């Protein structure tokens, strides 16, 4: 049983003595336009007795800036100094510096030693409050409060769910290329709070988050034979998945978190896809071809599975029913395709494509139409989706470099961002929004 209580943050929509108007915002971002002009937004330092208010505001600002949809205004340009965040600001002081939205807030300590944070989002041209919320949590969770605030602002102004209060699990890589140490590592989506989950003695690869629990599945060489494991994030308990004679690899959870779908190596050297129910431990064979069938990924409704197979000669992408059956090839471009991952919105499949000596990260519709390449380079692979299906993270190793690093890019192919990690990093997997 997973205890999530330690991660919970109490959320109250607060009146706070200010009229919360159910008004229509004048300010908004149409995220579906091809080119989005970043929205100028003023994010003030939250009032606090110590520096915590400024720290929280700076995390909110960094999240919004990195999304590429917001252009936070330099604090030096601010005219009004917010001293009472419960009072309405002088809107003309903000419109004159072209701040279309304004964020104010306050951070204090409760009598029992907890952190209390409140913030308001203002539409400066309409002269009204769009959001007012407050949060109570233990002091060490202050970054999570900042990410939740950034998500609330993102959602209010774009109409889309945010993705800032999320984490990334990935493979930390250190040491020379011909003797790499690989450790599972986890961090916040902005690179903060990095910690290691394994000690580096065994090669570990391809971690993936459970959609429903504080749990990951991954592949490890710790038992001599490489196999798929489960790791409980809060207790650190590890468990072998299934009792298979050969290598198991390429694991991924089903959307309800109850199954793991993965590849199992056959004695003849080919690999087929199996699903295992985590409660009953029953396994179901889903493919039977004399080929490499791997990298399975469920559709978000759980009804279909997309995977890589070389049954046609070279690696291509196929879709089949989640109960198996005849797969349909969907990739037909010039090159080979692998690592398909179904978008959490259900509309797209991200993939790695190899063509003309390059590796590309791209997306296509689930019937294979509408292929778009987001990024091309010498070596890059392994896309993972932000929970809102708007951003893809992957890893890249330029020619001549000593190791791979993590990058994110918008679905538009714009706003590429390098994700800071302690060492080299590969195989990122984005968590769902935290609870």
């Amino acid at each position: 049983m997973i205890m999530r209580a330690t991660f919970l943050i109490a959320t109250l929509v607060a009146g706070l003595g200010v009229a919360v108007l159910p008004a229509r915002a004048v300010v908004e971002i149409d995220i579906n336009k091809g080119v989005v002009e970043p929205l100028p937004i003023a994010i003030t330092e939250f009032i606090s007795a110590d520096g915590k208010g400024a720290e929280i505001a700076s995390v909110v600002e960094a999240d919004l800036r990195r999304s590429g949809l917001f252009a936070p205004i330099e604090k030096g340009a601010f005219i009004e100094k917010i001293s009472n965040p419960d009072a309405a600001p002088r809107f003309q002081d903000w419109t004159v510096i072209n701040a279309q939205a304004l964020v104010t807030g306050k951070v204090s300590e409760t009598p029992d030693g907890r952190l209390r944070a409140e913030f308001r989002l203002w539409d400066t041209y309409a002269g009204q409050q769009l959001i007012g919320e407050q949060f109570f949590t233990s002091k060490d969770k202050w970054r999570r409060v900042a990410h939740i605030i950034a998500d609330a602002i993102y959602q209010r102004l774009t109409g889309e769910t945010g993705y800032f209060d999320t984490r990334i699990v990935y493979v930390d890589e250190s040491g020379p290329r011909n003797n790499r140490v690989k450790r599972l590592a986890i961090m916040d989506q902005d690179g903060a709070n990095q910690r290691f989950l394994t000690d580096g003695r065994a090669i570990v690869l391809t971690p993936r988050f459970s959609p429903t629990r504080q749990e990951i599945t991954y592949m490890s060489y710790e038992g001599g034979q490489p196999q798929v494991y489960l790791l409980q994030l809060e207790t650190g308990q590890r468990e072998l998945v299934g009792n298979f004679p050969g290598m198991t690899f390429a694991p991924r959870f089903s959307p309800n978190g109850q199954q793991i779908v993965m590849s199992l190596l056959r004695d003849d050297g080919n690999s087929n896809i199996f699903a295992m129910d985590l409660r009953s431990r029953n396994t179901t064979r889903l493919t039977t071809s004399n080929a490499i069938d791997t990298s399975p990924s469920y559709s978000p409704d759980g009804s279909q599975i997309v995977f890589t197979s070389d049954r046609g000669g070279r690696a291509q992408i196929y879709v089949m029913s989640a109960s198996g059956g005849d797969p349909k090839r969907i990739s037909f471009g010039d090159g080979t395709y692998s690592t398909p991952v179904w978008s959490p919105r259900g509309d797209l499949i991200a993939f790695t494509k190899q063509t003309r000596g390059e590796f590309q990260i791209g997306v296509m519709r689930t019937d294979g139409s509408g292929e778009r390449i987001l990024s091309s380079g010498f070596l890059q692979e392994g896309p993972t989706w932000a929970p809102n299906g708007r951003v893809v993270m992957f890893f890249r190793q330029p020619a001549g470099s000593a190791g791979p690093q993590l990058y994110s890019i918008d679905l538009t192919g714009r706003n590429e961002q390098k994700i800071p990690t302690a060492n080299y990093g590969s195989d990122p997997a984005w968590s769902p929004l935290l609870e």
Partner: protein
Amino acid sequence: MLSIAAIAKNPVGIALVAALALAGCANKQVPNNAADIGLGGAGGPPGSQQEFTVSVGDRIFFDLDSSVIRADAQQVLTRQAQWLNKYTSYSITVEGHADERGTREYNLALGARRAASARDFLVARGVAANRIRTISYGKERPVATCDDISCWSQNRRAVTVLNGGSS
């Protein structure tokens, strides 16, 4: 349930690492090493680990995205089979590897297919199947680390590692 402490004591893992280190070292500096340690010849005494690695040849190479045993690899594997049929106290692990020009999971599968191809060839030449274990390292254990074909062709390999026996 497993713990880190339990894994650290895993004898299989430690033995494997030691074997890999030895094979890697022998491959690069065999003539010097063999002379330094006073072995009979560059290939080491008959039936030795050195003889297998140097004179017989412990590895074969593959074409891009292929697990077909090439003609040059057939010669090496035939010599391996003859040697193993003579020195029957050894068991072996056939490691399958891929170059870095493929995605991680696909290359795990490709490495496994290469190891299986090499194993099947050895079995067809009379080596008992129960002496052979296979493992795939995908592209996780390159021996050559430049970013062009000269390295990739060395990394697309199957390496036969001797386990135990009288060496």
